[in-house]
Every structure is written in C-alpha cells, then in structure tokens.
C-alpha cells in the first residue's frame, strides 16, 4: 500500500544525510582552519544597529490580545463573504437569507462587545 512512497522516503533520508553531513563537515573544517580572535563586540547578537536595552521578555497589556483576537474573529468571518459573493447568483434568495442570518449573528456579537465595552481602551 505504501510502496510508492518508499523512494520518497529514501530520497528524504538522503537529503537529511547530505544536509547533516555538510553542516558537520563545514563546522569541522571551519574549526580546523578558522582564526580565533573573539572580542566583546563580536560576541553581541547583532554587530550593527542599536545597542539592545533590556530583555526581550516584556509584558504587553492584555488589551492588545483582546483587540487582536477580536480583529481575527471578525476578519476571518468577513473573509467568508468572498466565496459567498462568488456563487451568490447560484445560491439565490436562500443564500441571501442565510448570509443575512450569518451577518445578523455576527452583528449581535458585535453589539454585545460594543455594549460590554470591549472596544474601549480604558
């Protein structure tokens, strides 16, 4: 059953082996031939640009998440309108009513969020 895939598997194994071998080989070669002259500037994560201040683990306000989540919700559901628009002639009135229902439910959610103050920053 799986026979046709066995060559692929072999190919994959070969690819992994080559990749791994090359990386190992290059690092080995580099280790043999490279010069070793470290200095503080060289050891920085970025050798150019601004000097980093503080750590990367900063707390963001949870409000950002809320807004991001709401955006994704409504965004994704808006995307649903596109395929509907493509075939809406084919779907006819029934399609229109159904989409109306869909938007209605979305609108209810929107209204709820609005009234609950989810869109206000403070």
């Amino acid at each position, binding site marked *: 059953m799986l026979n046709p895939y066995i060559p692929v598997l072999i190919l994959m194994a070969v690819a992994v082996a080559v990749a791994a071998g090359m*990386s*190992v080989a*290059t*690092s080995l070669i*580099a*280790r043999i031939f490279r010069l070793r002259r470290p200095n503080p500037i060289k050891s920085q994560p970025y050798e150019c640009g601004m000097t980093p201040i503080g750590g990367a683990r900063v707390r963001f306000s949870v409000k950002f998440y809320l807004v991001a989540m709401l955006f994704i919700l409504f965004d994704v559901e808006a995307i649903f309108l596109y395929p509907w628009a493509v075939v809406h002639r084919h779907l006819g009135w029934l399609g229109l009513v159904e989409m109306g229902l869909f938007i209605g439910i979305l609108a209810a959610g929107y209204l709820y969020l609005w009234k609950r103050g989810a869109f206000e920053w403070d």
Partner: protein
Amino acid sequence: MVDVHYTPIIPLLPLVSFALFVLGASVRSWLGKGARLSDQVAYVSVALMGVSWLLALAVAFDVLVLRSGQPYYYAYPWLSVGSVLIRFGFMVDPMSAVMLIVVATVAFGVQWYSLGYIAGDEKQPRFFAYLSLFSSAMLALVVANTLLELFFAWEIMGLASYLLIGFWYEKPAAMRAAKKAFVVTRVGDTFFFIGMLWLVLQTGTTDFANLVLGTAHGGALSATGENAVITGGPYLKALMGTTTLGWIALLIYGGAVGKSAQFPLHVWLPDAMEGPTPVSALIHAATMVAAGVYLVARMYPIFDLAAPLTVLGITFRPLGLVALVGLGTALMAAYIAFSQSDIKRILAYSTISQLGFMFIGLGCGGTVVGENGVRTFLAIGFSAAMFHLMTHAFFKGLLFLGSGSVIHGTGTQDIWKMGGLWRHMRWTAITFLIGYAALAGVAPLAGFWSKDQILEAAWEYNRLIFWGALLGAGMTAFYMTRLWTVAFTGQWSGGEAAATGHQAVGGHGQHDHGHGGHGLPHESPRSMLIPLVALAGLAAVAGFVGLPKANRFGEMVKYVPPPGWLEPAGAVEEHALHLPTPLRMAQAPGGTVPDSPAVPHSSPAEGDSPRPYGAQQLAPEPLQGGALSFPTEEGLPAVGGEAHAGAAHTPAGHHEVDMGLVWRIGLLSTLAALLGILLGASGYRGRRFNFRAPGALTPMESAVYALSLNKFYLDEIYWAILVTPLFWVTRTARAVDQAIIDGLVNGAGLVTRGISVLSRLVDIWVVDGLVNFSGWICGRLGQGLRRLQTGQVQNYVLVVFIGVLLVIAALVPSR
C-alpha cells in the same frame, strides 16, 4: 365483615404513620419550632399498627379458615420490562397468611413494648417513624404478588434496618454496625437481583401466581376454589429440570444468605445488636432475618425443580447446598454462643443458629433422585421450616424482649454482672423461662414440635445432617441453660458497679434506660410486660397447630412438586410431550424415552411446546377485586393436564406419618436437650465454668475456646481479604495521578533531559558555535519537560494520550 379485600391496607397503615412523622417533623421545622415531635405521636403509630394487626389476623383467618386455603390475588398492570408485563398487586396464600400473623403480631407487640422501653429518649418519635417504615416494608414483602415487588420491600426493609441499627449513633459502634449490616446484606442482594433478572429473562414473568403457585393436582389456579400450594407454576414448565434454574436458585439464595445471616454473610447480625433491643426483637430475630427463609420458601419450586449442579466436579442439588450451609451455620453459631457474655449477642448467635435450622428444614425437603433415577419426594421439610420460622419468631421475639427488660432492669448486658434475677424480676424471669424452654426444645412448648419436624426431615434426607442437627439441638439447650443459669439464678452480682472500667458494654446503660446508677435490679413497667406475657403464651401453645398426627399447619403450608415430575421412567411414555426435552432426559437416565407419537389427549390448541421467551404476556386489563382471578392465561395448559387429577400417584396425598419414627426422634431430641440442659446447669451453677479466668484452661483448650470467643476470626479474615484490598485499590486508584503518572512523566523528562544533555555534549565537543542553536532548543525542551513534573494538566494529557494508544492498540489488529 373484614375479609381478604382489606389486604392492601395492612402494609399501608404503618406507611401512613411513617409519612405522618415525616410530614409532622417538616411542618414543625417549617414553623421554626425545631423538628422534634412530641412523644404522644407514638400512640398514633401504635394505634395504626394495632389496626393493621387486627386486619392481618382477619385476612389470615379468612384465607386459612373461611376460604380454606384458597388464595387472594389482586393486581393491576404496573410496568413492562421489555415484553414482560409486571403487575403491581397483592397476594395472600396460606404461607403469606401465616407470615402475616407472625409479622403483624410481633410488630405490634414490639411497638407496644417500645412505648415503655424508649420513653424519655430524646429521639423517641424518630424511633417510631423508623419502626413504622420497617413494619410497612415487611408486611408489603409478605403480601407481594411478584418477585420484583418483594425485592422492593426487601430493600426498603434493609434501609429501615440500617436506620434502626444506627439509631444510637452517638456510639461509634452502632454507626459501624449499621453500615456493616447494610453493605454486607447488599452483597447478597446483588446476587438476588441478578438472579431475579435472569429468571425474568428465562420465564418472562416474576408473578408468583405464574411461577410458584398451583393446585395440588397440577391444575392452574382458577376459580375452582382449590387449596393453593407451592408448586411449579405454568411459566416454570419450560425450565424444569435444567441447570439454569439451579443457578438462578443459587443466586436468589445469595439474597437469603445475606438477609438471613447464613455463613459466610452472617457477620453483620451480631454487630446489629448495637441497635435498641426492641429492634433486635422485631428485625433481627422474628421478621427480617426470617425474610430470607421466606424468600427461599416462596421460590421453593425453583430450587427443587432444577437439575443438580456441578461445580469443580462436585455434583449437588441446590437444596442440598442450602441444607449443608444451614447445618454449618447452625453449628458454628451455636458454638460461638457458648462463649459470649453479652446477653443480646448470645441471642443473636442463637438466632443465626436457628435460621440455620430453618434452612436445614428447607434443604431436606423436595425431591431426591435415587440411584435408579427415580425421584422421591420428601414432603415434610418445607412445612417444617416454615413451622419453625413461626414458632421461632414467637419465642425468639419473646427472648429478645425479655433481654430488653433485663437490660432495662439491671443496666448491663453482661450476663456475668447479672445473677439472681429470678428473685428480682419475677415476670420477666417466668416469661424468659418459657422462651428458653421453647428454644431448648422442651416438650410440649412450641420449639419442640417444630424442631422435631426439622429433625424428621433431616432423618429422611440424610442421616449425617440429622446427627449434626441433633448435636445442634443439644448445643442450643446448653448455651441457653448457661445464659439462664448465670443471669437468672444465684446471687445478684451487682451490675455495672461490680466491674468498673468495662466500658464496652457500659455504654448501653445510658441509653437502654433513663437512669444510671443501679442498686438492685427492678421489674420493668407494665407496658413492657404485657407483650412479654402475650408472646410467652404464643411461645407455649403455637406448636399445637403442627402436631404430628394432626398437622393443620402442614396441610395448609406445603410444597407439592408438579405432577409428572415424580413419574417413574416407565410412565414417561404417557407424558413425554408435556415436558421439555431436558426434563425428559433427566427423568430417564437409561435413555429409554421412546419417540412416542402425539399423545391423544393433548390437542394442538393447547400449545404444549416450550414457550419462546416473552411470547406470552399477561392479560393487560386490570383485575377487579379478583380474589378469584389469576393472571394465568387460559391458553396455558396445566402441567400434566386434567387427566392426571385422579391418578393414583399423587404427591399431594397426605404425608404418611410414621409414628414410630416421630416417637424415636422426639425421644432423641429430648435426650439431646436434656443433656445440654444438665451439662449447662451443672457447669454454670455457682458459676463453676469460668473460662475467662487466667490459667483455667490448658493451651489446647484455650485455643478451642478462643475460636468460639472470637467468632472463628471471621471478621478479622474479612477485614484482611476484602476490606484491606478494597482500600488498597482505592488508594492506588487515587494515587494514579500522583505516583504512577508522575513517574511516567519523570521518566519521559529524564529521557529527554538525557537527550538534551547528550546533545549539549555533542554541541560542546563536536559542533561548538554553529550548532549552539539546536543545543539551546533541546535545553529549552528539557527545561519544559522538567517543568511538566510539577504541572498537572500535562500529566493529564499524557494519560489521555496513553489511553488513546491503548484504545487503538486494542482495536486495531496487529499484522
């Protein structure tokens, strides 16, 4: 005129008084006056029970005398289980009628007695509420018309018993005892439940009129007015002679073992003595524990008409097992009773022992297959057991109430702290003496007649059981004499005050009567003595209904195998078609069954072939006041048919009384009783036997004595092999999240950490610099996994995942 149609009211009245208690308490609590009712309410309960008692007597009289044994039956459709219609109703046949008399009488007596006994107790109304609930359930059990209804009453009875045992919940021992009683009897009930279901699956009915009732000549119960007997009912026909029936019988017997405290489930009964003494008298001596015997008697045809069973190469008839277990229980309990010092415990073990006697009686009845395959019917065992049940209820109820009076009067339960009560409590002593003599089997008191019948049954069935039972009878006389001699004769030894620091028993003193410090014992109030006297009268004369020559009892309450069951092999030809195949095979072991053509008198319309499961339903329309209407369908043929009614070989014929045998057995049992009494009296007169004193016994003897004192260590054994493992399993199950899963996660973490360490090594030594990144990932992973050990959700995920793997592995065949 009060007649059988009043039957439904009998269990209803105590239920009404129970409901009154609950409602009253609720209303008071609602009004904010505290839930406790006034003591006067108890009179309502007693009055209702009294009316119920009168009705029970009237109904029993009607069935037994006026209708001369023709049963009362009334039912209406209740529910259907699959294609099986179960009808809710009432049935009083002679056996139920006898039980009605016993139960109602003892229940009424005990309620009356409790008026004096429990007076002044803070929880008095509650006590009567529980008593009423119990009485109602027990009466309902007796008049139930189906096995399911009986089971209902059985369970409610268990619940009421649980509440009553734990009535003095301030004592931890009482609480433990209540729980133990409930759970231990539940073990038996579970078997009963499964057996019942199996029976329904096999026969399609639980109705007694279909299963176990009929007329003596095998006709279906109908309006002919014939005396009803316990026999194989029409719906049982297809199962007769099968091992299935035997297994069902054993499962149902499991319920009886639990309720009637047979070995190995007897351990709850002695502990149940922590309950108030009237409760012990009512529930744990006279009625509830006898319900198991009643159940086996009720379902007797199922036990008797089964094929012998084979387990581990041993073949036995179900009833033989019943008899053996009964004998073992009787002897063991009597032996334990030798060494107990608590008066109620002695009586409790005596009860267990006597219940064993009843089961011996049941087990020694029925049909026995001889060497040549011929079935012999032993008639006496069945009615002997029921007879003993009745007499035992009276004299044991009496003894318990008497012991209650003693405890009330002395403030102790330890017989060694009593003594000389004969002088101080004359009425109690006289009635107690009657009860003791009846139990010991002194002629002509009740116990003598019934015990002799059981011995006679045992003689006919198996001599070994007979000698064992005779030994048991002698032991009974011995331990009762010991109790009598120590407690009632000699000098008053001072009650609780005599031995301070004996707290195990002393706890009762505060409850069993209102006042603590005792001087001399005193007689109990009259309200307690009247029931004692009444029961003493019954204990004295109840035996006369079952005299060997004029056995009125045995004529009314009897079991008769269905016609055709006892036919010798040669006669099978005639009736072959009436019996399903397995039965025919069992009847003619030589394989002589001829393939006979249709027998002339069986028309095809009768439909004699074994019925497919559930094919026949009961008529759905309700029967109106149908004392005469029975649920058996007209299409159902009577086993054997009318042609047999006049056949010469009828097992319904009177049991031939061999007076010579009766005399011999009577003599033997009297001898055994006398021996026991003499031994006991001489041994305990002046308290000569005192095995509790150090150095009184040789090591060998004290080992034997310890066996009795410690009740064969059965509680300890159960604790070790049942309870401890259960708790172990429980703890393990609970510890699974904590220990095993953690271990698993730890293991996984360890492996991963190992990998990460390894890869770090690889990093450092092989690919420094460039591959640092992968090392960092592995480190993070290791850290993450290490963090798993503290978190719980992750463990859970792991469990779910392992579960998934297991399910897949179990489902998908490996190839």
